[in-house]
């Protein structure tokens, strides 16, 4: 078990940032860590990386306890913190050299490793520049290079793609994918496609509590029992009339004659809706079935009113 979090509680003042959270990440697994802002993702990661101590509970990385044995944990961890803090006045190679030395690497071994990581992270052209002269995407690469310099067994990446443009996001994502072989990766993200593209499994937390820990397939399958149809009528039919259509479970009036209908997934409700419109002498201006995506899964799991 690479990462084991057991009944973790972290309080700030009177507020529970993380509330009895337990999960495990197996060797070699890539796990996405999801949750709305303020759910406790970063706090959990800070505890795993020994930056913050847990209020209670046990956190282990490769069997080393983060409280009793932080030095061991720090050695096998690569960590990219949120907002990617860097020493802006350092040169890229100088910075990687510093981090490598901190990890006890020296001489030609360190030099070869820096060359290797620079080309892996696509920094060859930028390697002799100052960090402050780099664009955000390249800074993110430097952050990743820094986390990977000592070839860590476990990688913790806190929102590695926030603030990047779509091309950079894809580049960083591919980079993570190619670098993550034989490593255990826990990374947090808001971007669902990213999680879908990268992860074997997702852990979803909300308000510091675990709400789901499963493969994306299983999670979407649950969600697929219901389908969402968006229908637009020329006039505004009554909500209760719409509920009478076969298979319709719930109706949300989105205004301007647009309705969001939740229907049983095994019934195709679209012909019935079309008929309904014809009967009511209304024109059907739009009818679209939405796929259950990670987004809807995410929204369902982290609804504030969900018990």
């Amino acid at each position, binding site marked *: 078990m690479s990462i084991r979090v057991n009944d973790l509680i972290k309080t700030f003042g009177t507020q529970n940032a993380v509330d009895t959270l337990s999960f495990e990440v197996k060797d070699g697994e890539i796990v996405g860590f999801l949750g709305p802002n303020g759910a406790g993702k970063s706090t959990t990661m*800070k505890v795993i*990386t*020994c*930056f*913050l*101590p847990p209020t209670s509970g046990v956190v282990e990385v490769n069997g080393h306890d983060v409280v009793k044995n932080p*030095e061991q944990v*720090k*050695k096998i*961890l690569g*960590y990219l*913190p949120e*907002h990617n*803090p*860097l*020493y*802006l*006045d*350092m040169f890229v190679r*100088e910075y990687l050299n*510093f*981090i490598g*030395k*901190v*990890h*006890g690497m020296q001489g030609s071994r360190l030099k070869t490793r820096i060359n290797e990581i620079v080309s892996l992270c696509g920094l060859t052209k930028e390697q002799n520049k100052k960090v402050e002269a780099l664009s955000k995407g390249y800074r993110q690469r430097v952050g990743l290079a*820094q986390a990977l310099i000592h070839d860590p067994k476990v990688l913790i990446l806190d929102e590695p793609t926030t603030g990047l443009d779509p091309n950079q996001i894809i580049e960083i994502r591919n980079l993570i994918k190619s670098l993550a072989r034989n490593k255990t990766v826990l990374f947090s993200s808001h971007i669902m496609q990213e999680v879908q593209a990268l992860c074997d499994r997702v852990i979803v937390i909300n308000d510091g509590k675990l709400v789901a820990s499963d493969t994306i397939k299983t999670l979407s399958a649950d969600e697929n029992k219901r389908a969402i149809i968006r229908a637009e009528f020329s006039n505004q039919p009554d909500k209760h009339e719409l509920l009478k259509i076969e298979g319709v479970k719930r109706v949300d009036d989105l205004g301007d004659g647009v309705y969001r209908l939740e229907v049983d997934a095994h019934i195709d409700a679209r012909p019935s809706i079309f008929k309904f419109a014809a009967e009511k002498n209304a024109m059907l201006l739009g009818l679209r079935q939405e796929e259950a995506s990670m987004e809807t899964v995410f929204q369902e799991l982290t609804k504030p009113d969900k018990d």
Partner: protein
Amino acid sequence: MIQVFTKELNSFLNSLIAYIVISVFLAGIGLLMWVFPDTSVMEYGYADMETLFRLGPYVFMFLIPAITMRMFAEEKKAGTMELLLTKPLTDWQIIFGKYLSGWSLVVFAVLPTVIYYWSIRQLGDPAGNIDTAAVIGSYLGLILLGGVFTSIGVLSSLLTANQIVSFIIAVFLCFIFYSGFSSLAALNNWGRGALLFEQFGILYHYNALSKGLIDTRDVLYFASVITLMLLVTKLILGSRKW
């Protein structure tokens, strides 16, 4: 520790701070020693280096907080503190690395003034008429004093993420430790405790060393203040784990 030390020293050298500190110190002290008539050795007429050792601490009082103020404050503000603390470094390695880099910059600034000793030695009548023992004691005192000011500066830098606040706290603490205790001891209400009170301050021990008599008690005093400051620094840095 050595990695943090090198990193800090490089950042001094790359950001011009080192050159500015050293040249401002040397220009200021040089003007005071050789040019300004009120304090110049030439006008004074005695072959000693009192000007350097009497005014040096006041120059340090501003220069050292200026070099130490960014040490932790900047890391806190830039978020690199998180980076540093999640690397396999102990708190002591980080503190010592930063502290020693600051202190060595101070030593580098003081070293060139040895040429003043040589000059005054030549200017003496007869040449060589200078109290070498007192000069050696004073240099030791000045460097130890630099060590105390640096430890105060490192501590102040950890107290806040704002460099200016850190600078002001450090200047104030340096002042209190340097001459504040002696001045307070001069108040009339201490009775026999006055001497003890004065001994808490740097000035008492600094003056003792500058007489050329290197007493282990004085050296021990400087060592204990440095240790105390660094211990408090360690305590505050470790307080994140409480």
